[in-house]
């Protein structure tokens, strides 16, 4: 027993070595003293059951106290060394240029991000989101929208039919009709969703694409409100100094109809291949709601006026991020998705 107590005293003196130990020495000391099998202190503790009860109590108390002191000292020195490493770098043998530990991250598709961003901007302008089915009737997809039967305007809307007069909607515009039929003015909605056209895949066409339509109808809405709302959107979406222009166009469901261009983001209007040397990029088709559309929905077209627009988030994403081929947006190559991975907004 006396031997054991002496050994303990000796061991206690060695506590002083700990504050000077470097990482390697510390690890050696730990093994030497507290090692699971051959540790000096471990062996003393292991010998306890063989002692007389009184001796066991005396030696055991001292040994356990020493063990606690060692553990505290080791932990303190480890913390010290770790902090030295954090602050001082290589001095402590830690190469801080080594890569950190990563975890998998995911993210929303670029087109979803653009859709969310657009809806958010229009939300600030008082627009809520409305949605509708992707399989539609000809009435909702065409005729209520003032497409004349057998008119060349239908050519640009080559559609997939699924039986009878049911087709995959060629734009999200049918939701304009559904909204006008279900809610009284004032109406301010944006309509995100998929649309389908019978275009084979190529660099700039996809048979399925995302569209965001918008509709505002109220007593007294004018061409000025229309221009202001969409120009405000463009400045919020692109940059505050974005230049926009409106020019004549044709859609059966708007009159006057307009196309909105923004100054080319790449050449700043000087002309480049991306903007086909025009200095402008087409962003959306739009116009004042055709009175026939309002009438088709039972809305008084003398009292109420409005504006509507439609745009393609894929096209806008490609414009803004310089993506040359729309197919990249559908391939789902994780290297592509990771480039634009941004967490949920």
């Amino acid at each position: 027993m006396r031997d054991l107590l002496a050994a303990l005293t000796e061991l206690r003196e060695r506590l002083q070595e700990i504050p000077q130990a470097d990482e390697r020495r510390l690890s050696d000391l730990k093994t030497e003293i507290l090692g699971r099998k051959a540790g000096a202190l471990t062996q003393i503790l292991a010998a306890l059951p063989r002692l007389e009860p009184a001796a066991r109590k005396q030696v055991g108390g001292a040994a356990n106290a020493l063990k606690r002191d060692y553990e505290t000292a080791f932990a303190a020195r480890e913390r010290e060394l770790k902090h030295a490493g954090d602050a001082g770098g290589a001095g402590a043998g830690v190469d801080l240029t080594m890569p950190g530990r990563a975890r998998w991250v995911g993210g929303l598709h670029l087109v979803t991000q653009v859709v969310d961003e657009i809806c958010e901007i229009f939300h600030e302008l008082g627009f809520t989101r409305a949605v509708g089915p992707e399989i539609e009737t000809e009435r909702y997809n065409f005729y209520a929208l003032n497409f004349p039967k057998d008119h060349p305007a239908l050519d640009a809307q080559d559609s997939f039919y699924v039986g009878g007069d049911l087709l995959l909607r060629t734009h999200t515009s049918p939701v304009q009709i559904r909204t006008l039929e279900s809610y009284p003015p004032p109406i301010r909605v944006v309509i995100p969703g998929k649309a389908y056209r019978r275009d084979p895949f190529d660099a700039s066409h996809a048979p399925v694409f995302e569209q965001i339509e918008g509709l505002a109808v109220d007593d007294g809405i004018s061409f000025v409100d229309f221009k202001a709302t969409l120009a405000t959107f463009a400045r919020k979406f692109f940059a505050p100094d974005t230049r926009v222009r409106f020019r004549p166009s044709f859609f059966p469901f708007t009159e006057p109809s307009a196309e909105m261009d923004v100054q080319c983001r790449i050449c700043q209007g000087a002309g480049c291949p991306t903007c086909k040397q025009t200095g402008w990029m087409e962003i959306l088709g739009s116009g004042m709601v055709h009175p026939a559309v309002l009438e088709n929905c039972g809305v008084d077209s003398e009292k109420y006026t409005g504006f509507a627009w439609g745009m393609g988030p894929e096209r806008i994403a490609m414009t803004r991020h310089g993506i040359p081929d729309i197919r990249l947006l559908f391939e789902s190559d994780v290297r592509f998705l990771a480039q634009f991975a941004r967490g949920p907004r």
Partner: protein
Amino acid sequence: MIVSRRWLEALLGQALDAGEAAAQLTMHAAAVDAVVPLHQDLGDIVIARVLEVRKHPNADRLTLCRVDVGGPDGPVEVVCGAPNVQAGKVYPYAPVGGTLPGGVRLERKAIRGVESNGMLCSAKELGLGQDHSGILELATDAAPGTRFVDVVPVADHQIVIDVPASRPDLLCHKGVARELAASLGGVVKLPEIPSGQAVRRSGDATDRPPVRLTGGEGTVDGVRVSLEDAEGCPRYIAAVIRGVRVGPSPAWLVGRLGAVGQRPINNVVDATNYILLELNQPLHAFDLAKLRGPAVVIRRAKPNEKIVTLDGVARALTPEMTAICDAERPTIVAGVMGSAESEVTTATTDLVLECAYFQPTRIRRTRRALQLSSESSYRFERGIDLLGMPDAARRAIELIRAVAGGELREPPLDSWPQPVQEATIFLRPERVARLLGVGIERAEIERLLTSVGFFVAPKDGRLAVQVPGWRPDVTREVDLIEEVARLKGYDAFPDELRPYRPGTVPDAVLEEAKARVREQLARAGLYEARTIPLGPADGPEAVAIQNPLSADEAHLRRRLLPGLARRVEHNWANRNRDVRLFEVGTVFRMGKGEGEKGKGAPEEWHSVAGVITGSQRPPHWSDSAKVPDMDIWDLKRHFELAVEAAAPGCTVQAATGTGAGWVAVQRGGEVVGQAGSLEADSPVWAAPLFGFEVRLETALRDVAPYRPLPTQPPVERDVALLLPAGVTAAAVAAVLARAMGPLLERLEVFDEYRGAGVPAGQRSVAWHCTFRDPTRTLREREVDELLARGLKALEDELGVRRREG
């Protein structure tokens, strides 16, 4: 539509800057897609006069010419190989050092021992045609040395206009010139036809207006015309021109057509094409000699009546189509294409000229049924100028006679059973202000509308506006307001935000639900994919597309997973091993019940799916071993996350049946989702692939209530249990929870072990139990009693015992 700058200049009587014209058209009429310069590369070519032609000393076929090129050093020597070179004539000349079209620089070199100072050029060498049989002889008295492009009008610009379906008036030069005159100032006047007057003789019928018929039948110069189908053809003007000489067109006509990309055919056809492009009036000239009767009958085709069209294809007609026939059979598919047989050839001397208006929807259906379109059908489908036809016919006759000779013995016959006049629309200036948001002076409105051919007269405080025949798109007041807006210029209107009233439509719950799921799965480390909803049939209920682009994409998806699995294969093909994707999208199936869109109409709903394969986490240099690949336990967690977000209230349960997997079950027992291993075409280095899919519920989510944070300390116990075969962890957890009551706060599995020390067929599962009483400190003894109660219940109910040692 391609228009030529020079052609527009001829109509406007003034020079145009192509870029400026394009800008004006874009901002006021229709977008210009491109401005293409033509023959701008002839700047080095000059006019040269050949003074003397001698034989080349060393070659029989070559000549030596002394040529005046207007240079200060007098005439130069040129070697020429053309058979048609003659002293005294004028040719285009390219000097050594100059550049030919195509960018070839002319080098000084000796030809058969004689040095040439330059080259006399053929049409082909200048890019002006295919003629390479000789050099291009010029009829000009311009001084030698004058730039070729200043003398010969070939330098031009094509202006490519994207004409919308609503503006047929912009499908011709006159219509485009009209818009330019409105925005740039000026008037449009048809240019004189070169030598148009010269062939005219006294007593000629050309100057007389067509004879108007309101009945269906008449005769012109021996040809009987009967209009039987006035619905398909409301107006038909026919003229007979006798004694034409069919041959090549004069250079000016070839030049005009060439400038807009049209190849010359013969003088008669070229003349009709010219009128088409000038006035948007399609014309048809056919050989009178081949006309049986001779008669022109405009009628509905008989069922299955046959015609061989100009493109050599035999076509069967239907009574839905209008045909132009002779006494026996069809010679033209009205408004679309003529027959090869009745075509004008070099042998033609007498011809019938047709100037007609065909009903647009009739033409559209015919064109689609025959899958045959032409310049004519394109224009008829959009609506031509019904009221301008007599003028177009007169000009066509004058042009044909100017380029092909012939005479008109009788004025044309104009069959028009139900004549109509210009439509009148009333426009209220206050409505203009209301719709456009700024007031526009009445005089300004009048000026703008008049500038593009509307006739405006004030009437009772409104404006009575007469719509010209070339604007079939203008049918109501709002159309006139658009005219005012575009002619004034959209940019002239302010764009200040004005106050608005909030809308009545609530934000769509579906979009909220989709956003919630996307957020959850993106946070869990998955990338969002967007696949297309078209693919092969993925089950008996798949909705078929009736007119698919390809057999591979002939159905709408019933589930998202197959599409995502294909995306994983695409990633593997690009050597991406770690692939974690999800999608939130629409899926479809054949409907069974009565829906809004009729009985049996397809149904659609939203679905959420994910696929995972690859390492559990990115490797790190400090790892002691390779990071394990994702397995079914990763799948289970992702599935639980998806179900929690997409279908709250559903539980995830082990699937019964073959294979390891889970299902999501609604409270009522309906299965709304599943998860498991996926089969895919995987490379050897790929990790196992797992997938899940669950139906998206769009209900609003409950608000999460606050639960007070515990203030009392927990008591923790670890317990290892021996589970006989067939006893599940879930069953054990359920028994423990019930037996130990509300003081058991948490149960976590932290280990599973089979092997030494555990009886065969059993397994040891270790649990970490947390006990807590929210109001007071639990005593160890109480916890021991609780645990004992739990263990007893386990033993009694499941035969599960504590593992000793």
